[in-house]
């Protein structure tokens, strides 16, 4: 009977660059913007490689690399204005928070377990990395709503994984955002996995973007390994939010090219077929091919970028690794704006313990 809405038929994600780096439509990104984005992508790829190898030597903590998702993250971030927009990250969006002003050494410190890693410079408009999955989403809606109430034209972009999108917070947040018409963009990175759990076990929905209708908001489904497509879709969503026309849910279809994190062993669950399906879709290579084919990048230019990236990673890791270890006093810093007697007594007891 027609009164039932049947589950949908298959649909293709929006795409502007094919896997060979050929432009399929029109992009609004200038060559300079694409080059800048490419550099962010390469910077974090460099960082991921370096940090992974340090981690294997026991000189860095467990962390989740962005490898394979660079176009998705940078494409989204490139539509934001750090001077007025906010980011509420999950934890796999390093280039976005760097571009927004987070020093790379702070990110490194965070994953080295150093409390200095929690420091967010003043005027950097980001929320802390979120470990409790999807918990950033209600907060993102709140910030967006507050910006709107205060008549600023800031927009909040929040990142969420395919796995995290199963949490109740996802639903509650999109629903409130719809009602409040909050200037927020929900950028869902469907990278195929939540640790070992494949996307097919996460939801029976055709696409995550199909959820938008259930909240009366706009939805989009985009090839997340296509920088230009992601930028285009995100730009439109940010503009709509800024104009007061409400939130958008964007599903960015991408692929986690490595392990969940440095403690994970994906050979336990990722199949050869999985690998094959995504072979040749590397987002960094795709932009590189495009930049080279359009003459914006040559070998020299490429090498210059690589060097800048390597230098920046070395610098940041150097700063992080030479940061003095934190003392137990840091346990007590920033817990309360107004501490109190029992708390102060504990701080003092811990200070004395450290002297023993």
């Amino acid at each position, binding site marked *: 009977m027609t009164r039932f809405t049947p589950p949908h038929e298959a649909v293709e994600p929006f795409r502007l660059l094919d896997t060979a780096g050929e432009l399929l439509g029109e992009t609004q990104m200038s060559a300079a913007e694409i080059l800048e984005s490419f550099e962010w992508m390469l910077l974090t790829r460099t960082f991921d490689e370096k940090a992974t190898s340090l981690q294997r030597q026991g000189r860095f903590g467990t962390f989740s690399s962005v490898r394979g998702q660079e176009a998705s993250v940078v494409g989204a971030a490139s539509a934001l204005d750090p001077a007025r927009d906010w980011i509420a990250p999950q934890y796999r969006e390093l280039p976005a928070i760097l571009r927004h002003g987070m020093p790379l050494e702070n990110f490194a410190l965070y994953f080295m377990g150093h409390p200095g890693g929690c420091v967010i410079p003043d005027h950097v408009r980001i929320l802390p990395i979120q470990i409790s999955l999807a918990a950033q989403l209600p907060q993102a809606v709140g910030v967006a709503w507050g910006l709107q109430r205060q008549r600023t034209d800031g927009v909040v972009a929040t990142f969420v994984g395919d796995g995290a999108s199963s949490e109740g*917070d996802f639903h509650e947040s999109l*629903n409130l955002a719809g009602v409040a018409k909050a200037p927020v963009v929900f950028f869902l990175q469907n990278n195929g996995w939540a640790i070992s759990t494949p996307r097919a076990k996460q939801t029976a929905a055709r696409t995550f973007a199909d959820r938008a209708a259930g909240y009366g908001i706009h939805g989009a489904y985009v090839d997340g390994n296509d920088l230009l497509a992601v930028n285009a879709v995100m730009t439109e969503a940010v503009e709509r939010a800024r104009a007061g026309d409400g939130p958008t849910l964007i599903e960015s279809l991408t692929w986690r090219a490595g392990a969940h994190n440095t403690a994970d062993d994906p050979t336990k669950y990722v199949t050869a077929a999985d690998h094959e399906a995504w072979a040749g879709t590397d987002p960094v290579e795709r932009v590189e091919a495009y930049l080279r084919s359009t003459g914006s990048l040559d070998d020299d230019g490429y090498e210059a970028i690589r060097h800048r990236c390597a230098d920046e990673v070395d610098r940041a890791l150097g700063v992080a690794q030479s940061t003095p270890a934190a003392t137990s006093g840091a346990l007590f810093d920033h*817990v309360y704006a107004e501490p109190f007697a029992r708390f102060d007594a504990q701080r003092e007891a811990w200070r004395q313990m450290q002297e023993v």
Partner: protein
Amino acid sequence: MAVKTMVESIRETLADEMARDGRVMVIGEDVGQLGGVFRATEGLQARFGADRVVDMPLAEGVIVGAGLGLAMSGMRPVVEIQFLGFGHQAFHQIGQQVARLRYRSAGRHSVPMVIRAPFGGGVRTPELHSDAFEAFYAHCPGLKVVAPSTAHDAKGLLNAALDTDDPVLYLEPLKGYRLQRDEVPEDRFTVPIGKAQVVREGTDVTIVAWSAAVQLALKAADELAADGISAHVLDLRSLVPLDVTGVADAVSATGRAVILHEAPLTGGFGAELAATIQQECFYDLLAPVHRITAPDTPYPLAGIEEAYVPDQARVVREVTALMEVAP
């Protein structure tokens, strides 16, 4: 000074604060047009507009989480949880996000946010509406928890909670909303967070209580006085910060301590108090610290709630028995 009920005091304080500070917003279920199921926010939407007094979708997690976001953006949200029992749905946001944001952001983000929630029994609510779940929240570092017992303190503590940049869970006694009436100064004042108050002087035994149980303690103290037992009554007012000195002084003054609360015994906030008291007052104690609480069972249906929540007869009986314990 006018005599007010607790709910009037809360409502008027909210109104005063909203008038004084444009950053204060009230959000929650049914807080707008209806003015809250207990009318604690009645008239606020008409006066301050539907964008400052907001009827939220029915989802405690996002009510709290969005409140946290509002606070980050520069507002000072007052978030209502319709009944503390439904704070469970927001427990991850309250215990891990609200309480820890300042810490997790190394001070970059303050959390000037008040979460108001009625709690406790005695008014024949449906299931899950009457539990006294304060102990959960007192075990969440980064959060402060206050529980006024009078209309006066309701105003003073609400103002203090609005002033601080720390998040405060502000507990309101279902039972005291309309029953409790006392004098409330018209001018703005604060009651310091973290300070207990002696509400009755006595020499034989110290009863420590908060929220609606304070009134119960006072009534029991009257009855005990007639029996020749002089009870000292301490109104805790704040659970976190715990006024350790105030509690220790009050107990040491008599050498006997009774803690009174509505929550079940095991793991209730009375446990923390008893543990603290025996630590601080070890040499002064003439008898074990005694807890008068609900049993370790769920809050029952209304028909037997009177048997569940401690009542005056029980307090008098158990305090009297404690007086007979050999030191």
